[in-house]
């Protein structure tokens, strides 16, 4: 393999003081494929506390969803393998836990919603049955009680006429309503952590605003920690407390949302922010990050971003940048983060 494995640990602020609610620490995930071993996640560390929203930003293939699946324990192993790393929940490592104990946490204390609600819901069962399943399986509730709870939950996620729609099938709902049903299932057992993998990507903007508003309300009610996986810079700016930007299987920048948008410390983050169309630059050419996202089977040497980077110098081609500490709450995996930071955004 050309790209070496990289060890990256939590930021100083997360290591000091109390253990965070959920901490991903130096996680590595590899996939065994016919073409060779693919390092999809290469030393990822992040943490979430109760009531906090972490946005994980990245393009397809950056490893953001694989990290989430590793936290949930829903990776197919094999072909996936976790050679290194910890996922600590209340200080206990989930990866070394027995399967039965992990099943107690998955879905009940850490829940997840997916991008495509239509394919994530079972088409041959009613939505009431599927929401009620959470209570029947995890709490041994009777069918009748589970159905009653399902109606309550559908009310809570504001599905109009919940009582009359509980026996409808997924295809009878619109995209936004289906996503509400997914959310109802995820919050059924009052999880402490909710992972939302591109929850609004397939939806219209007006519906997206409804769903994001709903998630924010639910988070406030129950003080959930939220991991929001997305590539939408607008949504992130709206709801996130802190951001983790992923590229080629690594986190290239950690920052609070305000710091990150005001003055990015990694050229990739800076490029993403600059390529957003802006009113005052109408008619001019958009800034575009040149080149293409890396192929995980054939990663560039050194810094994975170097073929596309305007700040590239000689050592970027050979030396993998560690996650430099910018401040207690900020990190950047760029040898020249000081230059990037000084240039500011735009």
């Amino acid at each position, binding site marked *: 393999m050309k790209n070496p494995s990289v060890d990256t640990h939590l930021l100083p602020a997360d290591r000091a003081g109390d253990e965070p609610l959920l901490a991903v620490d130096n996680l590595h995930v590899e996939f065994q494929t016919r073409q060779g071993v693919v390092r999809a996640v290469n030393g990822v560390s992040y943490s979430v506390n109760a009531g906090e929203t972490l946005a994980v930003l990245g393009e397809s293939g950056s490893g953001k969803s694989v990290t989430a699946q590793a936290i949930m324990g829903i990776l197919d192993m094999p072909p996936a393998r976790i050679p290194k790393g910890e996922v600590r929940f209340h200080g206990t490592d989930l990866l070394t836990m027995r399967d039965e104990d992990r099943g107690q946490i998955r879905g009940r204390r850490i829940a997840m919603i997916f991008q495509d609600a239509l394919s994530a819901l079972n088409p041959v069962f009613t939505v009431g049955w599927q929401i009620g399943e959470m209570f029947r399986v995890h709490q041994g509730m009777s069918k009748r009680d589970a159905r009653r709870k399902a109606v309550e939950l559908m009310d809570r996620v504001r599905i109009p006429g919940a009582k009359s729609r509980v026996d409808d099938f997924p295809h009878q709902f619109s995209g*936004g309503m289906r996503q509400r049903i997914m959310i109802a299932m995820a919050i059924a057992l009052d999880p402490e952590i909710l992972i939302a993998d591109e929850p609004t990507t397939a939806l219209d*903007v007006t519906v*997206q605003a409804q769903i994001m508003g709903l998630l924010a309300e639910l988070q406030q009610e129950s003080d959930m920690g939220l991991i929001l996986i997305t*590539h939408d810079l607008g949504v992130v700016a709206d709801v996130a407390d802190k951001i983790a930007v992923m590229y080629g299987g690594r986190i290239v920048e950690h920052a609070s949302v305000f710091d990150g948008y005001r003055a990015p410390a990694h050229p990739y983050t800076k490029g993403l922010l600059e*390529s957003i*169309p802006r*009113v005052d630059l109408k008619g001019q050419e958009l800034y575009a990050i040149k080149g*293409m996202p890396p192929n995980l089977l054939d990663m560039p040497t050194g810094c994975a971003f170097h073929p596309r980077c305007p700040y590239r110098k000689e050592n970027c081609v050979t030396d993998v940048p560690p996650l430099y500490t910018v401040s207690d709450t900020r990190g950047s995996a760029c040898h020249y983060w000081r230059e990037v930071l000084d240039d500011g955004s735009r």
Partner: protein
Amino acid sequence: MTAPAEPILEVRDLVKHFPLNYGVVFKRQVGAIKAVDGVSFDLRKGETLGVVGESGCGKSTLAKLLMALERPTSGSVRINGRDITTARGAELKRMRRNIQMVMQDPYTSLNPRMTVGDIVGEPFEIHSDVAPKGGRRQRVQELLEVVGLNPDHINRYPHQFSGGQRQRIGIARGLALQPEIIICDEPVSALDVSIQAQVMNLLERLQNEFNLAYIFIAHDLSVVRHISDRIAVMYLGKIVELGNDAEIYDSPTHPYTQALLSAVPVPDPEGRETRQRIILQGDPPSPANPPSGCHFRTRCWKAQDICAEQEPALEARPGSAHPSACHFAEARDVVNAE
């Protein structure tokens, strides 16, 4: 930008109703999906008209009608003064040459068994008089170069390209017959963020180079604003507001446009607590049974009795220069509002 150039495309009262049938043996029509319900606009040479709206509002049906892939229920689409909706046979084929399309999904809109050369060259097979057989390969290579691909890759297959490169192949195919109008149906929404800007720049460069007119259909409003000279906002098969980019974005007068714009997240966290939002309740009504009067009244906070009785016309009203289909049209800046 609004130079009084000749309109190249004139759409008048375009209507497409899809019949809803009931019964297996004896089908009878029980209703109709009013996908496009009376749309009129002009497109001038070299101009870009953005079309925005939620899914199901009829954007893609409109595109199909303009391409004459669907026959309209009524209304006309004139390209350079000739009506494409009534054209048949050789005349239709000739007219289609002038209006081409770039599709949304570059993964499914390219045949995986054809080489790039065959895909981009296929329009020449159909319209064989455009490029002589001997010169086609060279013409395809020129096209690949124009869209920023390596002309030596002419024998490769689509799977050997990334998403952004595939979209470039789709654009090259659209350019092959040197059309004057290109319809772009969500051309960048399937692409990674860092690639979107590259494709947008390419589309703008090609427009300047070949004086193309674009119909740019998209749901990303910041992308639409960047590329469009004028923007049409659609709701349930109708255009509810039409204006240039500053009119639509800085002083929208239709409540739906205001709601749509305020729902778009602003990529800047500063001041997000004070930002005001108009969040619409519920989903759009079904186009099979739209509300009486103004289609938007069921979700509108301004709705009064008149809205249910009388359908508002798309026209300029006092206090605003651009047409808006609302009885109570009133300019309101929702994007820069504090």
